[in-house]
């Protein structure tokens, strides 16, 4: 009996040691991969920061309105943020690669899913950035055109255009990420439809007097200018 217990114990210790001996090299490989990954990720961060500084990415983001959003959220400047994001994504990728070496069943599928998801995440962020860039540019162009054409409430017009483009970019981003695709699509459809319906009602009913005054004013003034020449001749 005693011998049997001792034999089982010996067997268990042997299996544990064997398992540990089997696991230790893999763990060392994981550590090596993680360390190599850290070095690669750090170099990637430095390289990306340099490239972004070279193309004046911070100024581009400022023009797009992305910098202001980051400042409000107490986040670092866009170049720094993009650098850190690249660092963590790259390092996390290496760590997960190392974890897959451990051979833990079930974890490998998750690692594979993460690597499949990574390009979509990058594309989604790119879409969002382009959306913010486009929204900032178009909103400013609309604001300037409206001010120079003496259109009433130019800032409201500009903000509305910016919001529509941002909502559109956000819905595209979620669609790319595959997050609640149907919900986002329906929500976007409802929101966009509501905005358009609201505008139609506002202009058609609430703003009919304003619209009439605006048109009368515009054409009457144009006629008046034609008759009396009340505009500057700049050149």
């Amino acid at each position, binding site marked *: 009996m005693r011998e049997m217990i001792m034999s089982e114990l010996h067997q268990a210790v042997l299996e544990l040691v064997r398992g540990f001996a089997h696991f230790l090299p893999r763990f060392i490989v994981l550590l090596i991969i993680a360390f190599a990954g850290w070095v690669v990720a750090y170099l990637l961060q430095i390289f990306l920061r340099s490239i972004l500084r070279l193309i004046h990415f911070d*100024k581009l983001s*400022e*023009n797009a309105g992305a910098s202001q959003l980051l400042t409000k959220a107490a986040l670092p400047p866009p170049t720094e943020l993009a650098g850190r994001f690249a660092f963590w994504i790259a390092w996390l990728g290496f760590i997960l690669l190392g974890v897959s070496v451990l051979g833990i069943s079930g974890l490998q599928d998750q690692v594979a899913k993460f690597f499949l998801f990574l390009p979509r995440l990058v594309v989604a962020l790119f879409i969002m950035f382009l959306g913010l860039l486009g929204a900032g*540019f178009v909103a*400013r*162009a609309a*604001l*300037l*055109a*409206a*001010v*120079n*054409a*003496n259109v009433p409430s*130019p*800032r409201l017009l500009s903000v509305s255009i910016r919001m529509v483009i941002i909502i559109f970019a956000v819905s595209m981003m979620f669609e790319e990420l595959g997050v609640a695709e149907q919900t986002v699509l329906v929500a976007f459809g409802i929101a966009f439809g509501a905005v358009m319906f609201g505008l139609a009602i506002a202009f058609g009913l609430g703003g009919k007097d304003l619209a009439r005054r605006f048109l009368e004013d515009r054409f009457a003034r*144009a006629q008046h*200018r034609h008759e*009396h*020449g*009340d*505009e*500057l*001749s*700049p*050149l």
Partner: protein
Amino acid sequence: MMETKLADARSGEDSFLTDDFLRQLMSVGEADIIVGLPTLDNAKTISPILDAIQTGLVRFFPRDRAAIINADAGSHDGTRELAMAAAIDDVRRNSKVSALRTLHSISTQYDPSEGSALRSFLAAAELLRPRACAVISPDATHITPDWIANLLQPVYRESCDLVLPTYSRHKFDGILSTNLLYPMTRAIYGLRIREPYAAEFAFSGHLANDFMSQHSWREETARIGCETYFTATAITGGYRVCQSFLGVKDRTEARPADLVPAIRRTVGALFASLEPTFSSWSTRKGSHSIPTTGAEGEFTLEPLPINRTRLREMFASGVAELESVFRSILSPATLAELQRIAPREDAYYSAELWAKTIYEFAAAFHKSVINRDHIIQALAPLFRGRALTFLVENEQSTAAGVENNIEGLCLEFERWKPYLLELWQDGE
């Protein structure tokens, strides 16, 4: 010889010059004088202008080979047909002097998205090798044959390379010229050129060739504002620049929508032309007069109805609504001062503040702090504010008073030039 030049022209201006235009230029051969007439739907005014040009050439240059070149941007009112049908024989019959040499008249159509009429005239000058070229505006309904002599003779007989006009015009006409283009060009380049963006001007064949070899037509600002680049090339290239008094300049009917395109093709081009010429203008100090035939400009004083309320409202609303845009362009001090004056009934946009504003816009344009066209568009409401102050200041002024006012503004621009240099080099 002509075939070689033709081949050169085809290689250099391959997509711009049409085969038909090249054939017409070949049939002319060589010319001593070229007069260019850019048009776009000018059927109402073109005939008397062509008549004045032809009479001027026959009367003042009877022994020289001359060609009138019409470059049309795609008229739909028969302008081109009128230009081509203009018969030189009618002029000869009515003129007391007979031309001893041939006077050619040719017409071409160009694509405005690829270049300006000036590009056609310069390309023609490269081929025809004239001694002198002139450009006449299709809106110059007050033109007389003397204009041709006044523009071309300084080039033809006195070796000037660029002749710019001075006019007799209403004190409140051309406010963009008197309040921005003239003072800034004078402060930057050190030459007192009254009309840096001229509708009528003359130049030597030598300057034309030099400009064609240097100028790139790829960028939009370089195409739409090439006249400004042309003047800048003449100044910085050490060419002889002079002025000639032409007479009365017509008041062009303007609409509010005309202001931004006008600012774009003049101020935008002026700002853009500062970059390639920086090494030349950055060292210049003060300003001096240039040789001028006749008066340096005259002002007429008859009452002119201008809607000041509208100017004030657009200035005030522009400053309020565009705050976010101005924050990218202007310094905090300048923006704060504008926000202080703009809402007031008696808004006073001083010469000093105006000069600083323009220099901050020029530096912002150079650094592309936002889209360059947006910077130019943002200037329009501020220009209305400055124009309003100019109208109020000179309401009761005599011609001498207006001249003094403009001189004061020019001196402010000259005084603040180091500020522009400081802004320009900041961060470089």
